[in-house]
């Protein structure tokens, strides 16, 4: 295949997000406005909203979650940007990662100079059983779901294949949860803005208050092995291996590189983009990695002209703990089968050589599915510009990467960012 290049340079000059969590009193419109304001506040030299020429909004299924279709023009209207073109992008949990790519391609093509990329999802309006049903439609409704698969079930099946081939243990998965909660504890926008130790302490206090026996976990690992505190969802995945059900919105401002300095003296350029598709899980020869993510990574690295060794920080799609381990291999940070050892050795912590999910990841920050991909770019924008506060990594982040997966890997989209 010919090596592909963008038609012209494209920069991120603003990025923001709503608080992630469960907000019974809010709809996607409210959260998107919140994300837009946060994004606008991040534009160093200010943004006149009228500069925006088009919107690409990632949204998995407001239809099922909120009984509201046709959401992109509503978002444009709520921030006062009609009659500009507003396009909804749907690729399950990769919806806004793909919206980011669509925005990137639109600016690179020369069609627009300023594009707003958004992500929206409100999931908590439905009872949990209905959320499970809505998410299942991102799988194959004819051949996978009737077999009894659920989303945790798909990733659990990948986990068994991975554990069987490489000897990984449930404890390696637990390390991913511990790390991502440690990071999320430093992110005030995160749904679970607390360490697992703090979660344990909260449960002890609550038991004491209710006059119940106070749990006696010796440490986090004992807590994570407790079937009552951390129940099995789809073996070997437990509750703390799963990302939560989240309401949230994200917003990223893309502009052509030529005009980036009108908005900031510190733009972040997107130098690589890759996207790939695949069939159902059972259509793949290898169940221990996500082929579309490997392909998308390869495309992004080739376009950027850099390698995995050059990347300082990555946000990857940890919808489940096993997904993060597989992701770190698919983006080339670790050899196939070595990701679980890297997690256990702490190589992916904020202070390790390959920091992963400094935001807390989907696991702790939350996973409003259609908003998660653009949310990864929000964290990268902060880390690259040294504005991640307490969770800022202690090194110069000149190159970073985002890895966003839809479904079980029917879609994957990877971006590479450079600070010049």
């Amino acid at each position, binding site marked *: 295949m010919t090596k592909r290049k963008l038609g012209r340079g494209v920069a991120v000059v603003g990025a923001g997000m709503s608080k992630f969590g469960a907000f019974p009193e809010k709809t996607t419109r409210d959260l998107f406005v919140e994300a837009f304001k946060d994004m606008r506040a991040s534009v160093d030299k200010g943004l006149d909203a009228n500069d925006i020429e088009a919107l690409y909004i990632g949204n998995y299924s407001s239809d099922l979650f909120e009984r509201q279709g046709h959401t992109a023009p509503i978002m444009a209207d709520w921030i006062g940007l009609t009659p500009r073109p507003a396009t909804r992008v749907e690729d399950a949990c990769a919806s806004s990662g793909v919206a980011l790519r669509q925005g990137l391609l639109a600016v690179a093509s020369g069609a627009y100079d300023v594009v707003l990329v958004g992500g929206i999802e409100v999931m908590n309006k439905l009872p949990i*059983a209905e959320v*499970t*049903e809505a998410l*299942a439609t991102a799988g*194959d409704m*004819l*051949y*996978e*779901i*009737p*077999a*009894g*698969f*659920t989303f*945790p*079930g798909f990733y*659990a*099946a*990948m*986990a*068994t*294949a991975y*554990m*069987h081939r490489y000897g990984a243990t449930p404890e390696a998965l637990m390390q991913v949860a511990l790390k991502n909660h440690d990071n999320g504890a430093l992110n005030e926008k995160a749904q679970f803005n607390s360490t697992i130790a703090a979660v344990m302490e909260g449960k002890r206090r609550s038991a004491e208050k209710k006059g119940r026996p106070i749990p006696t976990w010796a440490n986090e690992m004992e807590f994570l092995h407790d079937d009552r505190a951390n*129940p*099995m*969802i*789809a*073996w*070997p*995945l437990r509750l703390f291996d799963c990302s939560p059900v989240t309401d949230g919105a994200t917003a990223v401002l893309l502009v052509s590189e030529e005009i980036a300095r009108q908005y900031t003296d510190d733009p972040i350029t997107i130098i690589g983009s890759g996207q790939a598709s695949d*069939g*159902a*899980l*059972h*259509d*793949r020869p290898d*169940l221990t990695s996500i082929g579309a993510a490997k392909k998308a990574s390869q495309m992004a690295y080739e376009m950027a002209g850099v390698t995995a060794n050059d990347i300082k920080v990555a946000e990857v799609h940890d919808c489940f703990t096993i997904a993060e381990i597989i992701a770190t291999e698919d983006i080339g940070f670790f050899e196939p089968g070595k990701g679980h050892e890297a997690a256990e050795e702490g190589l992916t912590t904020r202070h390790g050589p390959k920091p992963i999910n400094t935001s807390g990841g989907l696991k702790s920050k939350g996973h409003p599915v259609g908003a998660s991909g653009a949310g990864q770019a929000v964290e990268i924008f902060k880390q690259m510009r040294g504005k991640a506060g307490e969770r800022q990594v202690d090194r110069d982040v000149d190159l970073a990467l985002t890895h966003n997966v839809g479904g079980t890997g029917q879609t994957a989209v990877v971006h590479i960012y450079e600070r010049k």
Partner: protein
Amino acid sequence: MTERAFSEHSFQTFLSEHKLMAAKCEGCGALFVPPRPMCPDCHGEEMAWVEVSGKGKLAAFTAVYIGPNAMIAAGYDRKNPYMTGVVQLDEGPLISAQILGLDAAQPEVGSIGTPLKVAFIERGEEEAQRTFLAFEA
């Protein structure tokens, strides 16, 4: 030979007759379970039905403790988990199916590779009656 279209409807009709059928590409010989109306490997348009042996082995699996509504209706819950997985047929293709005959309450990663044979589960009554694909250890 049969005239049935290479569709989910036909596949399901075969299942109700307790037959596991594959679509074979007349161009390149590739085999597809579930069936495809066009070959995704060579883009050929000539397909033929062939019955597969129904033998395979477990490639990946899980024991589901919180299932979808349909499985809850079938009697499964946290106290009675079920197994589902991906099965590689002896003929090559992989397919998702419920897994029977292994203890869902005591799953072990070592079960991967277990030889399995096709089974058919009947659920629902009258109009809602449907055959589900399963494999049994």
